[in-house]
Structures are given as C-alpha cells and as structure tokens.
C-alpha cells in the first residue's frame, strides 16, 4: 500500500473534531478534500499517525450572504460548489473568476476552500484571492475562536498562523466598495497546472475614474502570497493611462521575489508578472468605471 498506516476517525460534528485535535495534537492531520494531503501521503512525505476526516461535518459546508453584504463560506465547501454558486458569481466575482484556474473539475469536486487556504501553497489561487478581497479566516479550537486577516495568516512557505489544535472553520469576505473593479489572470504551462505567475487586482475609482484605492496580489512570487502594497499605492490619484500602469508594473518588481525552479527562471516569472499586472489593471479599471 502506498501510504503508511494511520488511525482514522470521521467526526460528525465540529465539536467532536475539535476535541480530537486537542487530544491528538501533532500526531493528527486534518483531512479535507485530500487533493494536496493524499498525494504527499502516497509519496510517504507525510506520515500522520492519525487522520481526522472533516468530510462528515455538514455544518462546515455553506455559503451565506449577510444583510451587511458580508459573504461567509464554510471551510469544507468544495471548490466546485463555489464555482457554481450564484452568490459567489454575483457578489464575489473575483473568487468566481479564479476558481476554474484551480486544477481540473475532478480535483475541484473534492478540494475545499479551507483546505487550499490552510495548505498555504504560494502558487495556489485561493490564498491570493483571500488577500485581494481583504478577507479573514476563523480559527476554532475547543473553548475558543479567533479571526485572522488573510495578510497575517500566511507566515512562510506552506506555513500559516494556525496552531496545531485549531481548525479553519469559516472564510469571511467583506463587500466591495461601490465603483470597484476586480480581475484575475495567470499563465500556466498547461491548463490546470499550478501557474508560473498570476495576479489579482482590485481597483476602486471615484466619479472621475480616478483611483482611490487598489490592491495587487501575486501568486508564485515569493514564499507566501505577495501583496504589492507600495506599487498599488502609486495608483491612488491616477487614471488608467498606460504610462501609469507600466510604472506600477515596474514598481511591483521591488516587492515580488520569485525564484528559479524546473518550470521557469526567476527572470521569466518577473517578466510574466509585469505583463500580467498591466493586463489585470486595465481590466479592473474598466470594470470599476462601468460598475
């Protein structure tokens, strides 16, 4: 058999799951969609002594919109469910736009939003979207819960602020201000592969189409999702003319730190990031103005 032996439990409530992670500590791994965890178990790169399967906890699978416009997503909601969800399409178009870039339908049928966010792969789409939308995640442990901003959640390569006995339970996405446009794009070798470079833009403009706030967040550009805050700040007070967008794309180069790997050189990734930055900004500005 491929994976090493382990004990397996499948709690049917969050309370039960929280008790299990408290009791078993670092011996236990949480199993969500399994689309990242099972491959590494098949290679025996991970050999957890116990798996706590979250797939039988229906209370972690939901999408809700509150009166104040906040979207709340249960961590065990499948990526495929989100991709087809009318609330996501209407109120969080950036998430809707990014989901089909994740792997393939068979993988999104199992993969969850919480699993992808917790896994913290710097090349993954969903952590970038969390930061771009200024979202937060809820971490629960037995006897307590806390909220962590996306920008504070990612601390290092495949590492988050989550403690061993905490379960990521909910994702909160605030409503976008009026006249805000969003866009996401990426370049991958083949459709469904992890991208070589990708960027999400969120741009807010005033009545005269002048930018009042902007965020630019990159995947595969460092050890965590990279928010280029200084480059994005250059957009404030500006309109979408080509010179400005090119200058911003240049400025982002100071903030991203892609590395060379078997798929592409750091130089090529930097080049892609520059080209994609101009592209998403044009799109986001246009959408903001037409909003």
């Amino acid at each position, binding site marked *: *058999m*491929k*994976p*090493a*032996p*382990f*004990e*397996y439990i*499948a709690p049917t409530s969050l309370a039960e799951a929280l008790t299990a992670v408290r009791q078993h500590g670092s011996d236990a791994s949480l199993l969500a969609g*399994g*689309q990242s965890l*099972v*491959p590494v178990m*098949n*290679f025996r790169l991970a050999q957890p002594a116990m*798996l706590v*399967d979250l*797939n039988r906890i229906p209370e972690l699978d939901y999408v809700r919109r509150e009166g104040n416009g906040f979207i709340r997503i249960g961590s065990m909601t499948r990526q*495929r469910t989100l991709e087809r969800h009318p609330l996501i399409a209407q109120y969080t178009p950036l998430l809707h736009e990014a989901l089909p870039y994740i*792997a*393939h*339908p*068979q*993988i999104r*049928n*199992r993969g969850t939003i919480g699993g992808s966010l917790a896994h913290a792969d710097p090349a993954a789409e969903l952590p970038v979207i969390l930061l771009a939308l200024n979202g937060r995640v809820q971490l629960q442990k037995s006897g307590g819960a806390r909220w962590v901003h996306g920008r504070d959640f990612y601390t290092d390569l495949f590492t988050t602020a989550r403690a061993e006995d905490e379960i990521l339970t909910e994702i909160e996405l605030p409503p976008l201000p009026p006249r805000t446009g969003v866009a996401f794009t990426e370049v991958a070798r*083949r*459709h*469904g592969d992890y991208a070589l470079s990708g960027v999400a833009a969120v741009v807010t403009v005033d009545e005269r189409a002048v930018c009042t706030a902007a965020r630019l967040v990159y995947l595969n550009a460092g050890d965590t999702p990279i928010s280029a805050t200084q480059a994005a700040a250059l957009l404030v007070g500006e309109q979408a003319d080509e010179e400005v967008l090119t200058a911003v794309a240049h400025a982002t180069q100071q903030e991203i730190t892609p590395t060379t790997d078997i798929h592409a050189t750091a130089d090529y990734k930097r080049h892609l990031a520059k080209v994609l930055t101009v592209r998403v900004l044009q799109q986001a500005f246009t959408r903001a103005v037409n909003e």
Partner: protein
Amino acid sequence: MSDHTISITVNGKTEEHTIEPRLLLSDFLRHQLGLTGTHVGCEHGVCGACTVLFDGQPVRSCLMFAVQANGHEIMTVEGLAKSMGNLHPLQQAFWEAHGLQCGFCTPGILLTLLPFLAENPRPTEAEVREALSGNLCRCTGYQHIVDAALLAASRMEFGN
C-alpha cells in the same frame, strides 16, 4: 492500526468490507472487488486514469481512502455497459470514432465525460477539450477522443 467496516455501493451493488484505513479507493476497487477497469497511472492525482464517479461526480480514486466512501455510491467503467456486447452509447462512440489506442486512459475519460455530457448535452469542441484537461492520454493525441465525445453528444438522447 484498527480496521474499519464499510458499506459501499459500487455499480448499484451494496457490499460490506473490512479494510485498513490507508487502503486507497483505487486499490480497493481493483484488488478487493477485482474491478480492474479503474486504472492507476500516477497515483498522485495528475493523470486522471483512476477517475470514478463518487455520488455521480468524477473524482480521483487514488486521492481518496476507501473508508471515506462508506455509505456512498461509486460507479466504475464496469458499470457503463448494461451487458456484455451491449456497449453504452458513449463507449459505442469511442469505438466508432477510434477514441482509444492502448485504452489505458479510456476508463477515466469515459467517466469524466459521462457527467459532463449530462450537464452539457451540446458542448463545443473547446468545451470538450477543457473538460478533458485533467485526463492524460499518451497515445491518441486527443483528436479522436474529442471526435468521440462530440459523436456521443450528437446522440445524447441516449440518457444514462
């Protein structure tokens, strides 16, 4: 490590089995049930050869443990044809359009296409290619697979 007893419905037949939790669904289907139509290529989620339907939706059976299928319904390629010599219309289309050469990728491709065509009865060629993006074929160059899928779609009245 403790074994688990699961009840699982495969191709309409419900059975109980006692298994180790680390047994992959793909290995359970092949070794425990002898349903070797589910192929395993990479065993880490990349090739799609092991695709089966889990409660009607295509999934990688190499990325699930059999114990997780407790109480669920699985369909494998063996569940497609009603009887020997009586191919499912999707299989028939693959045969007629030469949609396979060695056949290693075929079971996964058929089970990816079945729910896809049910949801998109009149797909474009581009949509078919996108739907198949998670299934690798080392023989055909994909053209005949796409032709077969479009041929099957043109006869979509087949129901399931």
